[in-house]
Structures are given as structure tokens and as C-alpha cells.
């Protein structure tokens, strides 16, 4: 038992709450059924399936809270788990930041579940692997890759009568195809809620093309270059910016978005809310209803989640915050969807191909790898290009170039925008291809 229906979840959670003697009680159900296949060296290596379901009970007495869970679902076990949560709550120290449970709310019905993804078989996965292996063998290439499909369920109920339920599916695929002599490497990734949109043959052909095209890369001097970041290259730095947009850290002076008071300034703000920090074409938001990247319409505490802008026209529009911090600072609580860190960045209509055509000189980057933060004040990060880096001249890919290490900040990057293309889904987010000027490459890497 790992995925149960909304009706079954409601009956089960009501039964759990009936055992509660605490001031407040909140229950979460979390189920998952996942499958995967992995291949390398032109052969299938490992594959598996996992089935798991968890019930968690959170009991509160005043400012004291305890949590306990169980994997068994008979009545005696359900009562036992409630008693354990209550015992733990009584032993716990007061937490002054603990917030009361939320009131019932209405949630939009989400289109997050697809039968196609929930019905994937081992044979389907094996075929997806061969979609990369067979054409690679014919071209003396070496394929490796990974396909995973998941069917998950989340439900929340609390003693105020709040109840939320969502079931969703996701599938993701990636492949790295290398030349037999190790001189070329190409990569591709795709992810969808509905696996019927997945074309592993088409995706693999892109990795093959990049692999063959990246052989005998030439050296370019490190320095500042105009770069075209494919969506899969931009997602890493943008994701780190999104993750750094917490209100509390900003208010405490520990964020790129902390306000630095001017000499003698009276009542300065704590953070840079409303301040223009990026090019005005930059819009970053979360939206559970987006058809390409749908999520649950509630947060893990049951708060309804709506479309929220984090950056609008280059200005910080909202911060992520906890209910406690929002309440303390008199701001709106901005929850994000349960089980998702989804964000979207707006772009234009230009395709990646158009962007290359419109570039006089630049470096096309397939992906960035091993991205690590160097300074949280400036969001300066380092990392490397990987699996397909090309020199572009007069609208055409001229030749492959050796991989670079970059030292750059997404803040600088989003102030140096030349063009934004049409966003595509990457890792559950929507990301446009971006043309960026003066992107800093600090050294060369011998890695292929």
C-alpha cells in the first residue's frame, strides 16, 4: 500500500484525529511508488522499484509540539502513534516560534496526475534505455542514461477541519553519450508530468549530435564572454538565486537582499523589497496551475498556494517566508507548494536556434556542473561547463571549445541580459534560454 484515494485518505485521517487529546493535531500522509532504470557502457546496469507510505502525527500542547509516525494502519497502531506524539509534545521544550494550525481552506483541483506515467512498466523503461544504446552503438558511441518515473500522494488534515489531498506523477530522463575515444561528450535532459510527452529517441539523438560535435575541442582564453545558456545551463544559477530569496535572512542582514543603510538614514528598511536588482525583463514566479509544471495547490502545512511573483520587472516583489516570520514582521505569508520547489522565469518567443542565429560572437553552453557558492553576499558562484560547449560566430556554431570554469553571480548575470528565449521545462521549473554578456570564465578544464 503506497498510494490511496482521496476518500480513503479522508476516512483514515479522521480516524487518527478521533484519537487525539492534544490542544491541536495535524496529520500528514505521504505515499510513493517509483521506478527507474540506469544504463552505461551501452548496456543496462541497475533498475528498481520502490513502494513506501508514511503517516505522521503532530500533536501540540500550548507551545510544545511532538511528532511521531507509523507504517501500520490498524486501529491499535493508529491510536499508539497519536499517544506517542502527545507524550513527546509534553517532553519537548517550548518553541516560541510555533504557530497554531491553519483553518480549513478551499483548494483548486490540480491536473498533476497522468495515468500514462503511473502505468510505466519495466519493459517501457528498458526500451527507453535502448533508444539511446542502439543508435549509439551504430555510431561507435557509448551511451549512458537514466529514466525515473514516480507516482506520489500527499494528504494533510488537522483538528481545525482542514483537509488537502493531491496525487501527482512525474517522469524524468537524462542521457550522456560519449565518443569511444572519450574526446567528445553530449548530454540531454527532459522531464514531464505526462510521460506520453517524453520522446527518449529524439532526446538521445540530441546527445548523440552534441557528442559527435564536441570532439577535438579548441582552447579559448579564459575571460569575459557573451554566452548563450541553454535552459539546462541556466537552471542551476537561477535555482540558487531562488533559494536565496528568504525574508528572514534578508531582514537579519545575512543575504544578498539585505538592505545596507546609508549614513544617518532614519528607519531604514531591513531588506530590498521593491528594489530593482535585475534587468527589467526579469520575472520569476511560482504558479501551481502552470500547465507544463503543475504542482499541489497547498503547502505542507495545508496553506493554499497561489501564483506568486518573486521578481517582477527586475524588482524584488516578494520573499519566501515562514508563517512565524511573516506574522512577526506583518508581511503576507508566501507558502510554496508541498513537495515542490517549483519556479518559473518568463522569457520571450525566440527559440535557442534563433538566439544562435542572432549572435555575432559567443559561447553556447549545454550545462553547468558542480555549482558552489563562494560568497552569500554577492551570490558569487563557481562551477564548470560540461558535455557540449561551442564557439558561435556570425550566427553559426563554428567549433567545440574546451570546458571552462566560471566564477559568476546570478545577480550580475541577470543584469547583463542580451536576450531571453522561450522557456522550457527543466527539473520541474520553466527556464528560458538566455544570452548574457560579460559572463566570467576564470580558467580552462581538460575534462570532456
Amino acid at each position: 500500500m503506497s498510494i490511496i484515494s482521496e476518500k480513503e485518505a479522508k476516512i483514515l485521517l479522521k480516524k487518527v484525529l478521533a484519537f487525539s487529546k492534544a490542544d491541536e493535531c495535524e496529520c500528514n500522509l505521504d505515499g510513493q511508488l517509483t521506478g527507474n532504470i540506469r544504463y552505461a557502457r551501452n548496456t543496462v546496469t541497475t533498475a528498481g522499484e520502490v513502494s513506501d507510505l508514511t503517516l505522521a502525527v503532530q500533536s501540540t500542547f500550548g507551545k510544545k509540539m511532538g511528532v511521531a509516525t507509523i507504517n501500520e494502519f490498524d486501529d491499535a497502531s493508529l491510536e499508539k502513534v497519536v499517544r506517542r506524539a502527545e507524550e513527546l509534545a509534553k517532553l519537548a521544550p517550548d518553541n516560541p516560534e510555533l504557530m497554531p494550525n491553519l483553518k480549513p481552506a478551499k483548494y483548486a483541483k490540480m491536473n498533476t496526475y497522468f495515468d500514462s506515467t503511473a502505468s510505466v512498466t519495466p519493459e517501457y523503461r528498458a526500451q527507453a534505455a535502448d533508444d539511446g544504446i542502439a543508435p549509439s552503438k551504430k555510431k561507435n558511441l557509448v551511451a549512458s542514461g537514466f529514466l525515473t518515473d514516480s507516482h506520489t500522494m500527499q494528504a494533510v488534515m488537522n483538528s481545525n477541519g482542514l483537509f488537502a489531498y493531491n496525487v501527482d506523477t512525474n517522469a524524468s530522463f537524462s542521457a550522456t553519450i560519449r565518443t569511444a575515444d572519450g574526446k567528445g561528450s553530449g548530454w540531454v535532459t527532459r522531464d514531464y508530468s505526462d510521460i506520453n510527452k517524453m520522446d527518449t529517441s529524439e532526446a538521445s539523438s540530441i546527445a548523440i549530435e552534441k557528442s559527435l560535435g564536441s570532439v577535438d575541442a579548441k582552447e579559448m582564453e579564459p575571460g569575459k564572454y557573451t554566452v548563450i545558456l541553454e535552459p539546462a545551463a541556466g537552471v542551476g544559477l537561477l535555482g540558487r538565486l531562488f533559494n536565496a530569496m528568504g525574508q528572514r535572512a534578508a531582514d537579519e542582514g545575512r543575504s544578498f537582499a539585505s538592505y545596507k543603510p546609508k549614513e544617518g538614514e532614519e528607519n531604514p528598511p531591513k531588506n530590498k523589497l521593491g528594489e530593482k536588482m535585475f534587468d527589467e525583463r526579469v520575472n520569476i514566479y511560482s504558479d501551481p496551475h502552470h500547465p507544463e509544471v503543475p504542482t499541489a495547490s497547498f503547502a505542507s502545512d495545508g496553506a493554499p498556494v497561489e501564483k506568486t511573483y518573486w521578481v517582477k520587472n527586475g524588482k524584488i516583489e516578494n520573499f519566501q517566508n515562514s508563517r512565524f516570520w511573516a506574522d512577526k514582521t506583518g508581511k503576507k505569508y508566501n507558502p510554496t507548494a508541498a513537495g515542490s520547489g517549483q519556479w518559473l522565469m518568463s522569457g520571450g518567443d525566440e527559440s535557442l536556434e534563433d538566439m544562435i542565429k542572432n549572435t555575432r560572437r559567443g559561447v553556447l553552453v549545454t550545462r553547468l556542473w558542480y555549482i558552489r557558492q563562494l560568497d552569500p553576499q554577492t551570490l558569487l558562484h563557481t562551477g564548470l561547463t560540461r558535455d557540449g560547449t561551442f564557439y558561435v560566430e556570425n550566427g553559426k556554431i563554428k567549433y567545440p571549445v574546451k570546458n571552462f570554469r566560471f566564477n559568476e553571480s546570478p545577480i550580475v548575470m541577470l543584469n547583463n541580459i542580451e536576450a531571453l528565449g522561450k522557456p522550457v521545462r527543466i527539473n520541474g521549473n520553466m527556464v528560458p534560454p538566455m544570452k548574457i554578456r560579460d559572463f566570467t570564465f576564470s580558467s580552462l578544464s581538460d575534462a570532456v
Partner: protein
Amino acid sequence: MERRDFIKLTGAGMGGLMLPITGNMVSAAQLLERPMDVAMKKQLADVALNAAKSAGATYADARIGRYLNQFITTREKVVNNVVNTESAGIGIRVIANGTWGFASTSLITPESIAKTAKQAVAIAKANSKFQSEPVQLAPVKGVGEVSWKTPIVKNAFEIPIKDKADMLLEVNNAAMSNGASYITSIFFLVNEQKYFASTEGSYIDQDVHRLWAPFFASAVGKSGFKQRSSLGNPVGMGFEYLDGKKEDKVYVDGANIGYNNSYDMLEDATNAGKQLQKKLKAKSVKPGKYDLVLDPAHLMLTIHESVGHPLELDRVLGYEANFAGTSFATLDKWKSKKFQYGSDIVNLVADKTQPHSLGYVGYDDEGVKTKEWDLVKDGILVNYQATRDQVHMIDQKESHGCCYSQSWRDVQFQRMSNVSLKPNLEEDLSANDIIKGVEKGIYIAGRGSFSIDQQRYNFQFGGQLFFEIKDGKIVDQIEDVAYQSNTQDFWNSCVQLAGKSDYRVGGSFFDGKGQPPQVSAVSHGCPTTRFNNINVLNTKRKV
């Protein structure tokens, strides 16, 4: 798992359940319940092995696991979270038609186990259609019924929660009284109760303990903020690690205190507060070439990234090509017996039996008895880290015993063993002795940012604390330091090692690898070590 995810998890409360993690929250009382009876585990494992064989498997192993974690997370004066997690279930791995198959379930009944075993065989058979390299397992003799336990002195789970919470609050107070503006401190306890059985006649019961007590402090000044993390290490020990014994401290004049097999968290937090205030005023490094003197709590991560990973045989062979990457340390370099990985004073060993280390176990997750072996001897590449299904590819007959799975839910595969740099055995030099010989250099302590390419050539590392060395003395605390190098160049620039008395074991609690990604905990021992003429960057940037 990245540090950010870890922080999110430990501060997540109920929200944590919505994260893709292994582990269910349970009460403290439940954590102290007795593990499942060994006879019962054997009976259930036999159900899995027999069902797999009946379905056509030529080999099968079953891992029945009960994985317990406890996090206590505090922030300044507040205990944010006391979270107990438990995850139990069975993972069954089989070979059918020469192909691996795997399935796992949290429902540990004979019916469910038999069904899961059959599903693992069905997966193997479906995949065998596209199999071109049938699995070849290096022989392992069944060991019968055996058990092994991490030699802990104090079970950290048995220390009262209040005592642990109070200790962290005291640490926070020490840091804040001495200059920190904010601090998060955490106890993270791990107990893996795992039972391995295979069709080759092994029934291995192991009780593995690990502990990590990190803090993350910061100070806000007029011109910005600075951060300083703890210099303690994650270890394969019990709560005795927090005893902070005098004999486990190493003093570096004008710089910091290093910790070996026990950790004085309160002292480190006090120093963190003071050093944060110095960081706010410290001058920015002038970029250029420097001789680096690297403290073990820093160098361990450089070893991890530039030696541990590139010498994993699965990376060398291409099994990790789609995720973590491949390796520059290719088979031809190893076969030549002449590949100069480092200077001739560089000796690197892999060791799954190193006391207090995170990777210390009796047997790996495919029933192989653990051992120590050479990777780089007198500077020359001599071996890799490999599992049962890989060693035949390097003409060896015995697995190195470094197969691991993060839980019952995930398939086991080749993971890094403890990889350590041997100290200077001829002269027992101290860190201070090493610094004395440096004219223009930087002493770096603690782990900072780290980034390395997918074949492990080009890397860039930061640290926690940086001290300028001039004419044999530490003269100033400096900031904004990162060094860039190439693995082979770097290890060949290794010119001096401190001795046995300075040797310390550090580690990483969350080494990530594989698809789906799995974490593994691994240690690295080393002495303070000098590397000459390394390229240092300044990481300060205007935005």
C-alpha cells in the same frame, strides 16, 4: 545531499515529510525499542532468497534494514526541532539472465517479500534483452551467521534529549557572547541496523553508528556579513566524540585549534565568535601564487574530491558518466605503473577498517569483509576502489569491499571507502613546524566551497579560516581566498607532511552519487600538509 538540503531538512518540522527523504518520524521512546530479532530476520531473508531463486535468479541478496536518525536543531536561544526518524523495509537484489534487478518494500511480511523478490527478477529479465555485459561476480565465501557493531562508548540516542538540547544552546550562547550575531547548531545521529543475507550463505547482522555536531555561525557588520562553520568532524563514534579531550587538540600558533578523535564544541563556538569579528575586519587576499599549508579539517575534502572520487572504478569505467562523471585516472595510466599521481612522499590508502571513521564496517553491503589497500604508493597510481561485479575488469579476483546503499529502499553500488593520506613516518613534524619553513604562504583551515570538474582535473576550493604566512609566521587573518589547481599538478606540488601526532580524521556526512542519487558518509585522514606555488584567487566581487 547538499548542505542547504540538510539545513532545510533539519529545520523542516512537518514540512520535512514532504521532502524526498528516506525516513519516517517516530517518537524517542520508539527509537530505543530493541531491534528486530536476528532469527526473524534470517527467516524473512530466506523467504526473499528462495522466492528469487524460484523465479529464476542465479544469485540474490536481501538487506533488511532499520535506519534511525535523530536531529536536534537549535537557533540562537530556541530549540527549533527534535525529530526522530525511522525507516524500515527490505531491498532485494537479484541476477537473472546475467542482469541485475532490484525491488524494495516497506511491508515486511512473507507475502510482500516474496512478491518483491519476484518483481526484482521480472525487472532483471526485462532488462536482460538489452544486456551486453553479463554480470560477473568475484567469488565471496559465505560467512554464515556473523555480527558486527561500531565500537561506541556512549550511545548518542540514549543521552536524554534535554541534555543534548541544553548543550547546543550553551554552544550558541558561547558563539554569540564572543561575536557571532546568529548561529544554528545541530546534533545529527545515525544508527543503521542492517541485516544482509545472500544465496552464497552469508547472514550478516551489523549495527552501525555515526554522529555529526555541526554549527553554522555568522556575524553582521556595517559592511556586510561573514560566516564560520564548526571545525569538528562527522565521525563513526558515539557521544564520547563530544568529550573534547585535551589530547585530541592540536594548537596552531596564531591560528586555530584542530580536533582529532574528540571535539570541544563549546571551545570551537567561542573561537568562532571571536574569529567572525576578525573576519569582518580582515583584509582581502592579494591574488597570486602562494605556498599553501592545509589543515586536516580542510585537506580531507580536497582528498575526497581529487583522490577519492577519481579512483572509484565505476567512474573510471563509465558507469557514472551520466551523473557524477568519469575520471582522468584511466586504466592505461594505472596499467603503466608509472603514472605520477603525486610527488614521491604522497601515499594514499583506502581503508574500510579505520577506527572512528564514517566508513568503518565489518562487511560491505554485498557481504564482503572490509580491508585496507593502497591506491597511490610513493606517488604512483597502483589501484582503484571496486565492488564484486567490477574487479574482474582490472584483472583482480577479490572485491575491495566498498559496496554501500543508503537504505533498504535503494540498490547498493560502489561507494567511496575512507581514503587517507599517510603522515610523515620519518619525522613527527607539527603544523607549526611546517609553517616555520614557509616564506610566503597561506594556512587554510576548515571546509568551504568546493567545485571540481566531471573528470576531476580542474578544481577550486575555499575554506573557513585563512591566515597569511610571512617568513615562517602567521601574521594575519585574511579573507576571500580560493585556490585553483589541476589534480595531478597539485599532488605533485606536495612537498612536506606533518607526522603521526598531527594526523587527524575528518569526513563528509553527505557524499552524493548515483541515479537515483544516494548519500554516503566517508572519512579522510591526513596530517597538515604543504603544497608549493598554488594559484590563489580573490573571491570578492562587486554586484
